[in-house]
């Protein structure tokens, strides 16, 4: 078997192996499904509650994508501002870091005061939790333009705007897409936290209700659905990254 084929098969083998070992341990030690259900039990629960899970998962997906979309727009804008101006960068950094350090679950009650229970808190939580890595990465990409490159263009009379458009932004794209992979998974965490505390639908809400009713297999099924959705979204962003900034993985920038 060629190395390339092995690399293609490896994720499947490792994933299936992981669940197989899980299954064996559950059966071998006779672990109660209340503590740790076996994958087969979780699969059965997933099938049993499929309509309910699909309905809530779609809602969560929406919340996540809406929050993520907001994070991309604001993250890019703020990142460009931070990368372009050392003054803005120095001025806002403590605020940004401080804000990012607040656990977002603590912000949800405030969102509820402001917007009530509904779709706004999950979207806002997803947005707030995922925009920080985008800002930091875009700002880094723009502010680390090689000084020689800047000299070449400035000597020709290029404005700050020219340099950001021609060099800074394209250069920041690999950083940007790299941060999207982090941001999309964070956005999931955010929307689920929001739904758990301030929504009547969504996987987060389903989790809260299922655990309150001790429906353990349903809780696990919901978690598995979340993980699968997360992997799919991650793969989509990784694919977009690969097809738009493939140059970065071959060029010197990737080694630097």
């Amino acid at each position, binding site marked *: 078997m060629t190395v390339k084929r092995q690399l293609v098969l490896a994720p499947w083998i490792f994933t299936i192996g992981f669940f197989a070992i899980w299954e064996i341990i559950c059966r071998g030690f006779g672990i109660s499904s209340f503590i740790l259900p076996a994958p087969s039990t979780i699969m059965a629960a997933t099938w049993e509650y499929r309509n309910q899970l699909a309905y809530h998962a779609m809602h969560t997906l929406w919340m996540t994508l809406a929050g993520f979309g907001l994070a991309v727009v604001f993250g890019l804008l703020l990142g460009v501002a931070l990368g372009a101006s050392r003054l803005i960068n120095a001025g806002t950094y403590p605020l940004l870091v401080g804000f990012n350090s607040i656990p977002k679950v603590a912000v949800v009650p405030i969102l509820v005061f402001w917007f009530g229970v509904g779709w706004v808190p999950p979207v806002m939580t997803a947005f707030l939790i995922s925009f920080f890595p985008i800002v930091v990465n875009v700002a880094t990409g723009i502010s680390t333009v*090689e000084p*020689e*490159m800047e*000299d*070449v*263009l*400035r*000597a*020709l*009379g*290029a404005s700050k705007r*020219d340099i950001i458009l*021609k*060099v800074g932004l*394209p*250069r920041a*794209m690999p950083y940007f897409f790299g941060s999207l992979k982090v941001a999309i998974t964070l956005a999931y965490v955010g929307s689920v936290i929001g739904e758990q505390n301030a929504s009547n639908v969504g996987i987060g809400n389903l989790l809260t209700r299922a655990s309150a009713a001790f429906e353990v297999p349903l809780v696990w099924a919901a978690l598995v659905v979340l993980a699968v959705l997360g992997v799919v979204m991650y793969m989509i962003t990784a694919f977009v990254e690969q097809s738009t*900034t493939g*140059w*970065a993985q*071959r*060029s*010197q*920038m990737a080694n630097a």
Partner: protein
Amino acid sequence: MRTFVDIHDVTHVYARAEDGLPAVERLNIKIQEGEFAAIVGPSGCGKSTLMKLATGLQFPKKGTVVVDGRQVGAPVKLAGMAFQNPTMLPWRTTLDNILLPLEIVEPHRSRLRRHKAEYVAKAEALLAQVGLKGQGHRFPWQLSGGMQQRASLCRALIHEPKLLMLDEPFGALDSFTREELWCVIRDLHAAQGVTVILVTHDLREAAFLADRIFCMSARPGRIVAEREVAFPRPRDLEITYTPEFSDLVHELRGHIAQARKAA
């Protein structure tokens, strides 16, 4: 012949300099139009400062810089630059990298879209001149270091600058490639009649290429010697093995050694 670059009694201190020591002091340099000037000196002698002053990226604290008959108060816009690091943009093909200055500098900026074919032809011609015929479609990271440096020379020349600034452009190359590129530069200078300022550590490079060599002292940089090079053009690499050439390099070596001792 008229004076193209006139640096008169210039002292420059960077705002960031912690010791307040000037980077260059009482600098006097006159370069004629179309002349090939080389600036040599020990490291840290302010050669790069000189480049920034001549292109209007920095303004002198004292003294005046006149380029092309005008006192420099803003980036000069008529300069092309190449550095030791080729600084090609990896997301653009080599050809698009070379066209980059045209997207910035007028009048090309507003003409570029409508006259694209004409400019592409010009870039292809330049590529052929530096020995990269038909390589424009490749990405810079698919080229070797020497090829990238050739492309970076094309980028410096595409907008037909009147002044070409070269900051140790061949410092990172092996000696065979370097000598090849000396010839490329020599031919470009002969063909385009551009005024060149070459900053270098390599005395043989300066002696082979330049009409006039300035030796600088260690920081604060001053001109300790100015030497005209009389070898007839076009010059062949063979002249670098003649006794006259060795004598010249030896003489320059003496100036630099003294400049280092004085520091």
